[in-house]
């Protein structure tokens, strides 16, 4: 993974589609949480997902990553349909972080990232007990890779800290490192800058550019408009479960419906949506 230039978004060539979600619909009883949403993410692209609270963004993420089985619709990854099983999704190459951090609190940072390697390793119980050559090789490789990823996100010095004792911003980075450990082609970030100060937010967007530059596609849910319009190649706006508009940051930013539905007509520019989330909608 290399650290290179960042902000220059427009100049990069856009590759083949990685993720194609078509007609994804999720119903909880009578409630239509996600209604017929289409999303295509191409290689090396950063796509933003915005919308007021309760718009169904996280539910849509959960449908993509197999935590929910969509009521209807299809998710294709690199051309093949994805079964709605988290493990299959991760193996296919899609990893995620959570809106409210869900680290393994009583494991060290390094162990957390090593868990992420689980799906790319295969040492079984027997070879683990016997310390067979395969186990030793794989364990050393897992450790090295985890260490490398921690350094990549800037946590190289905190490997032996318990996740629970780490500062908030570091926990967010650790979650990203853990997701990267699954060798994804596409990473879904659920509000990676929630609760961060401007400086931390800038670091977060640098990190996301860095991830993109290392060849991954990124989908980001965010409320911070400046953050998302600076970061993303394309933005999809969800309102009450349906796609309102999809386009470049400029298009979305200037669309009157977005301003009305999301940014609001008054002075408050964000976070003023209804506080009640879709039942079970936020993980």
């Amino acid at each position, binding site marked *: 993974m290399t650290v290179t230039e960042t902000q220059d978004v427009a100049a990069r060539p856009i590759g083949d589609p990685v993720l194609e979600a078509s007609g994804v619909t999720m119903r909880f009883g009578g409630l239509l949480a996600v209604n017929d949403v289409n999303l295509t993410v191409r290689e090396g692209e950063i796509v933003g997902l915005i919308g007021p609270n309760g718009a169904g963004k996280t539910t849509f993420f959960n449908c993509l990553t197999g935590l929910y089985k969509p009521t209807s619709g299809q998710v294709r990854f690199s051309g093949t349909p994805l079964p709605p099983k988290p493990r299959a999704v*991760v193996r296919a190459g899609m990893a995620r972080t959570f809106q409210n951090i869900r680290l393994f609190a*009583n494991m060290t940072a390094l162990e957390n990232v090593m868990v992420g390697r*689980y*799906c790319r390793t295969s040492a079984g119980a027997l070879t*683990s007990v016997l310390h067979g050559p395969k186990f030793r090789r*794989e364990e050393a490789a897992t450790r090295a890779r985890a260490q490398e990823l921690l350094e990549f996100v800037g946590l190289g010095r*905190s490997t032996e800290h318990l996740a*629970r004792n780490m500062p908030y911003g570091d926990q967010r980075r650790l979650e990203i490192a853990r997701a990267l450990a699954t060798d994804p082609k596409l990473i879904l970030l659920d509000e990676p800058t929630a609760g961060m100060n401007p400086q931390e937010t800038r670091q977060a967007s640098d990190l996301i550019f860095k991830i993109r530059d290392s060849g991954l596609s990124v989908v980001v849910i965010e409320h911070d408009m400046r953050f998302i319009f600076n970061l993303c190649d394309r933005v999809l706006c969800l309102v009450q479960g349906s796609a309102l508009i999809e386009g470049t940051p400029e298009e979305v930013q200037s669309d009157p419906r977005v301003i009305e539905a999301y940014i609001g007509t008054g002075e408050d520019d964000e976070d003023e949506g209804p506080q009640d989330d879709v039942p079970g909608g936020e993980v």
Partner: protein
Amino acid sequence: MTDFETPVDDLSEAPAVKPGKPIAWPLGLAGVALVIVGAFLSWSYDGQILNDLSVNFYPNGLQNLAIILAVLSLVLLLAEKGPLVKLGSWVDATLGLRALGLGLVLYMVLVLIAISIESDGLINVNPGGYVTLVGAALIAASAWMLPLHQLRDMSEARMPAWFEILSIAFLMAALLFTAAYTLAQDEAWPLILCLVFAGTAATALFRSGVMSFVGHAGQRHRKVLTLAAFAAAFLFPFTQNGDDTNMSIAGAVLVFSATAMGLNIVVGLAGLLDLGYIAFLGSGAYVAATLSTSAFATIGWKPPFLVVVLVGACVAATLGLIIGSPTLRVSGDYLAIVTLGFGEIFRFSMFNLDGNNGPNLTNGPNGIPGIPDLELFGFNFGTDHTIAGIDLTRNSNYYFLLLLLIGGVILAFSRLNNSRIGRGWVAIREDEKAAEAMGVNVFGLKLLAFAIGAFLAGMAGTVKAHQDGAVSPDQYIFLESAFLLAAIVLGGMGTIVGVLLGATILKVLPEKLRFFLEYRLLLFGLLLVLMMRFRPEGLVASRRRKLEFHEEDEALAVAVEEERLIAAEEAK
């Protein structure tokens, strides 16, 4: 952001050191002298009680224990002020002395009570007893007048390697000696006094930080520690000299420990609550019984024992899979209820497979008696041996076999714990949903935990059948499952040493405290309630787990972090 600065500086803002009183130190010395002099005097007129404490200038049994505690106090006093003062900068003499002083007072009060109960009244106490009590009180008083120190961090204490190894070996020897001596007490009062002695000495060593030093030394010489522990366990039968009762208890402890280690995978690592675990031990035992050459065995196939072990373990593991695959879809309380039911189903099946209600496999309530002793490689486990003039009985033979077994179980546990699989288990325990979203095979790993745990318990069961010589359904009641779980919780979930300790305590105490009869369970309940109140992380908690329960303890958090950092640096 990424620079984590360990707040070491906060620590050096020392809590105000309370100055001690000048009289404290000489008072303590006087106390030590009095205890030792008192112990050399007669404690009682009656030579028939408490292993004879009636002879002047010939300290015996319990008096020697008092002398040992006094000598420990002397060492700590000299570390406080005197020739060992260098030691005092590492070791918290004051806290250690407080434990020793209090323990000694308790010890002597119990001695006086014991004497007056055993031979009618305090009149039977000789001056020696009172002198020692006064000495004990002086030590306690001086300990409370001594200042509290700011100590150097024990993890920085470095000694020559030979010294560290020697201290590990010495600790193991002391453990072996204490265990052997305590187990040798058949009467109630000497046993209780021995327990008080052991408790006092252990508390003093912990409070003064000596154990922390040995612990750090043990981390640096992990292999030495393991070897020393096994050597001590191996030597235990040689201290018993043919006493079959204690060896049979010891054998039961090892079976219980091996089963508890299996359950430790399920509960401690994967975080699945299983209340019917004894069934897996039972299935192993029943397999061994039905395949044995007992006249009551119901299956004609008589394979060699090593095959039986494998079959028994595999049957248990299969049962684990069968019970696991449908029930692991429920979690938490529901899983506990289902497994509780499974344990009862096993017992009733064994009870009813007697030929009347189905095939005759288990002889129903009568069980399968008359299981012959094992014979491995021409060695019959029923025969006694004499090695170096020490009798080794039948139960010692089984003890050695079980020691081998538990060695394997511990190895399997610790290696699994530090592998991809173990990390997966802990991840599931921590956050099942997140683990799933990271690609961990949650269901498969839960099943694996059930199967491996059951496998280990089944192995232990096959040996147990031969050691007990009989199996019957009433050995595998719910209470046993509850005790297994209690051993893990008491000792410390997910740890090795803790679970071994918990299993030993829960198995030895009921056997040795038989004179309490029906109060035994009551005492246990009380013990567990007190434990959960004051030390919810268990006797030997991994320090990580300690943090979970004592989150407000900043100093501890810092200490744990530093320890980890040091360990990490050393690993590099």
